[in-house]
């Protein structure tokens, strides 16, 4: 067996030093580049703010979107539909005289939905809704929902339920997004 000479040991030490040097070089260049990247991001943000300030139709920097959307969605509701918020749906969905309909595509329903809700995607509503409603007692409250206040499938389904002759219809405007955000129970299938 060949014995390690002093020169070999010196060579190993040199290789180790060189790899440490390379690592430090990488970290150093990344650190310097991160500093410059942060500076460019800050300059870009300033440019964006300046451009917005100069626009004739500039956006307000801060705006409460949740309140705005809920307001707009409530205005869009058709006559006869009742807007329901998360608190009210949470109180109602387990009641015997309440039927909850999920207007989203079936894949999303299978992933998670309000416990006890039935899947009623909009494109199936015309074919299935009539039969379902005929089997319901007339005083049943039908609650429809989709993802959030910006999706209109829940309202559209609510209008279809109304058009089918059922009088008690509520639309859960905040929908699944707010249900999940509030940590309410969900059910999954499939």
């Amino acid at each position, binding site marked *: 067996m060949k014995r390690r000479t002093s*020169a070999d040991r*010196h*060579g190993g030490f*040199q290789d180790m*030093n*060189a790899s*440490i*040097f390379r690592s*430090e*070089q*990488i970290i*150093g*260049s*990344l650190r*310097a*580049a*991160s500093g*410059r*990247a942060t500076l*460019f*991001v800050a*300059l*870009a*943000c300033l*440019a*964006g*703010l300046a*451009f*917005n300030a100069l*626009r004739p*139709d500039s*956006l*307000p*920097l*801060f*705006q*409460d*979107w*949740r*309140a*705005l*959307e809920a307001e707009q969605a409530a205005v869009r509701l058709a006559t006869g539909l009742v807007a329901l918020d998360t608190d009210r749906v949470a109180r109602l969905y387990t009641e015997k005289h309440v039927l909850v309909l999920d207007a*989203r*595509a079936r*894949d*999303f329903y299978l*992933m*998670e939905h309000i416990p006890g809700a039935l899947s009623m995607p909009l494109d199936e509503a015309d074919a299935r809704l009539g039969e379902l409603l005929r089997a319901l007692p007339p005083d049943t409250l039908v609650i429809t929902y*989709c*993802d*959030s206040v*910006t*999706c209109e*499938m829940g309202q559209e389904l609510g209008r279809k339920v109304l058009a089918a002759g059922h009088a008690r219809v509520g639309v859960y405007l905040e929908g*699944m*997004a707010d249900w*999940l*955000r509030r940590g309410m129970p969900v059910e999954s299938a499939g």
Partner: protein
Amino acid sequence: MKWRILVWACRLILGGVFIYASLDKIAHPERFAELVYNYRILPGDLVNLFAIVLPWVELTGGLLLLTGRQPLPASLILTGLMVVFGSAIGYNLARGLDFNCGCFSTSPEMAKETIRTLARDVALLVPAAVCLFDGHRRTSSRPQSASPIRVPDRPE
């Protein structure tokens, strides 16, 4: 030579994609703000601020990368943006949210997002990795004034 062509192609793809993506958002900030809000990730109060500055960060990163003036910072900015976008899209797909990514257009008629959007974002990480590697090579190959560690010469 082949490496230089590959790097140029990657810079052209990545820089071009980000510049193109930023223009419609800069032109229609109100529509972009609505798309940002639909992601349901940011607090409502911060939506407008984000929608105003983000396209400019994309544009700056894209221009810096295309002009080749600051390849490493530009690659870092664009890679960071893609990681943020990918995480947001993946998170929303996982929780089944019905949303438009608003990646290239703020039009409300755009198709809803699917796993393909996420795959496209992940695919763009490949040119980003090439640009990052090249940016580091170019930065570290510049003459250094003094090395931090002195490497002794191997004795003869």
